[in-house]
């Protein structure tokens, strides 16, 4: 119920921003949207399926570098290239999952950590990716019109993010999502429902990779430049932090988390060098006080879900 209200609020902000916000605010809202969409993949993987991936930034890299390279070398327009690259990210995610999810779920964290490292160093060492120098992102052209104004980029990025977020939200509430949740809470119960643990989890990883690659491709349009330093283990871990601070049970948590990390530094800018220290200090406090994420403030069911989370304890790591 309140979830629908939240959707109305997000869509209203996204739709009204172009008319009310200045360029700075508009850009930041766009970044919140794409970041939230990237993180929503993790929400599905961690919040629903109970798996940890430290490779979301690698899938973002595959989506964004993939789309730009497809355009540069094969002439595939970016708006087609991004979904194609996202699909590639999904296949890679599926393969990773296929290889290691026959094991206990917590190996996924370790394999994805290593995979993230491999992707980062591969980008730096290949010539085609521009190596350590990086790549400029070309402009999108549609029917001969170049869409490189901040407004056009905003519209594209926010639309793509909305599609991603909404799809993930639907998946969370689908039968597939329910089975993954059941699997997280009790393997035996889920298997007795006819769930194939390995293939379900592998698909969850692939889904999260597609979300990361797709939203990442659109974020590349906003950034206009791909630098390998944007795709490291540190940024991957950062996405996890965004998810937890916002709340890992719904896509609204991803949106709130992304908004915190995009906007709060601006409010704290008077602290100069101490800004990041204060920011992370409060993030720590927030995690301790609101372990279900900021989203739990708004949710009447927050207490209940918190109670449920503590009930099944650490099993879903």
């Amino acid at each position, binding site marked *: 119920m309140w979830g629908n209200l939240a959707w109305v609020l997000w869509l209203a902000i996204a739709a009204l921003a172009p008319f009310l916000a200045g360029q700075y605010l508009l850009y930041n809202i766009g970044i919140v949207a794409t970041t939230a969409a990237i993180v929503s993949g993790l929400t599905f993987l961690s919040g629903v399926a109970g798996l940890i991936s430290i490779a979301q930034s690698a899938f973002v890299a595959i989506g964004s570098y993939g789309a730009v390279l497809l355009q540069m070398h094969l002439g595939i327009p970016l708006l087609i290239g991004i979904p194609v690259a996202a699909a590639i990210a999904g296949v890679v995610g599926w393969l990773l999952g296929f290889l290691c999810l026959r094991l206990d779920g917590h190996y996924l964290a370790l394999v994805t950590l290593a995979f993230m490292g491999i992707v980062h160093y591969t980008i730096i060492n290949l010539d085609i990716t521009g190596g350590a120098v990086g790549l400029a992102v070309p402009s999108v052209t549609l029917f001969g019109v170049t869409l490189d104004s901040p407004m056009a980029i905003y519209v594209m990025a926010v639309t793509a993010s909305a599609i991603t977020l909404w799809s993930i939200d639907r998946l969370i509430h689908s039968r597939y999502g329910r089975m993954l949740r059941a699997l997280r809470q009790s393997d035996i119960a889920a298997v007795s429902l006819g769930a194939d643990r390995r293939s379900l989890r592998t698909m969850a990883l692939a889904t999260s990779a597609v979300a990361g690659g797709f939203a990442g491709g659109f974020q590349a349009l906003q950034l206009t430049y791909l630098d390998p330093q944007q795709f490291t283990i540190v940024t991957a871990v950062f996405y996890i932090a965004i998810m937890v601070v916002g709340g890992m049970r719904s896509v609204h948590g991803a949106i709130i988390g992304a908004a915190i990390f995009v906007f709060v530094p601006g409010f704290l800018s008077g602290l100069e*060098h101490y800004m990041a220290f204060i920011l992370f200090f409060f993030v*720590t406090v927030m995690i301790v006080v609101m372990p279900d994420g900021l989203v739990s403030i708004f949710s009447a069911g927050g207490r209940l879900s918190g109670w449920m989370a503590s009930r099944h304890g650490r099993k879903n790591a």
Partner: protein
Amino acid sequence: MLSGAIAGSVYALIAVGLVLIHNGTGVVNFGFGDQLMAGVYILVFAQQFLGLSLPPAILVAVIVSGLIGLAIQYLVMTPLRNRPVLIPIVATIAIGAALREGIRAFMGPNPWPVPFLLSTSPYRIAGISIVPSDLAILGTAIVVMLCLYAFFEFTKYGQAILAACANPTGALIVGIPAGATTTSIWVLSSMLAAIAGIVIAPLTSLTPDIGLIAIKGFAAAVLGGFASLPGAVVGGILLGIIEALSGYYVSSAMKDIVSYAVLVAVIILLPSGLFNRATARKV
């Protein structure tokens, strides 16, 4: 090879600290690298601003680092103990970032020189040049491991911690309070972080980002199965040697890719690490 073993012994120290917390509490401590960094900055602070000489400064650094561990356990980990494990893990990320950025603001972003424990002038023995400061790294690592081994093997308290790691409910039944063991694990591991930092920092020069080296420690821990202390030690040294060899035979730029690829292969082919977890759990 020797240089690989030296880098590896640093990875091993980090890996041991990580595995200790992971085994005892289920939490993967992503703030470990930052705790390591903070330990060295405390040393530098004690030396430069409190005027202490090196040995007492080291002592101060290790003790304060242990206190940070205590604070993390009481203020953050205890309230989160019944949450899904991802929550305390993310809390360690946030704690680490707060430590890192707090120190960057207070001590500045520019590098600080850190004194070596022993001389950096090489000796030539039988045609091999040996650098005392490198030996200090290796030596410290070995001594620390031996102390840990002795602690876990021969003291009642160490045995109790191990028991609690292996079987929290069982330990509770025989009267070992779970809170006490997790607290000592956090303190012990945080002190290890400071020691690892003090050993590595003179080599690299100290900046707030020195903690990134902990990523190698994670890799080492994985190589060792992420569940056993001896596994972590061997994993660390093995990683150091793999890096050195791939740096020499493949290419320096590719060596990180090679190490990570080895890592993925190990996890997929030998999921319990290079050492069987069941036997390794003992220590």
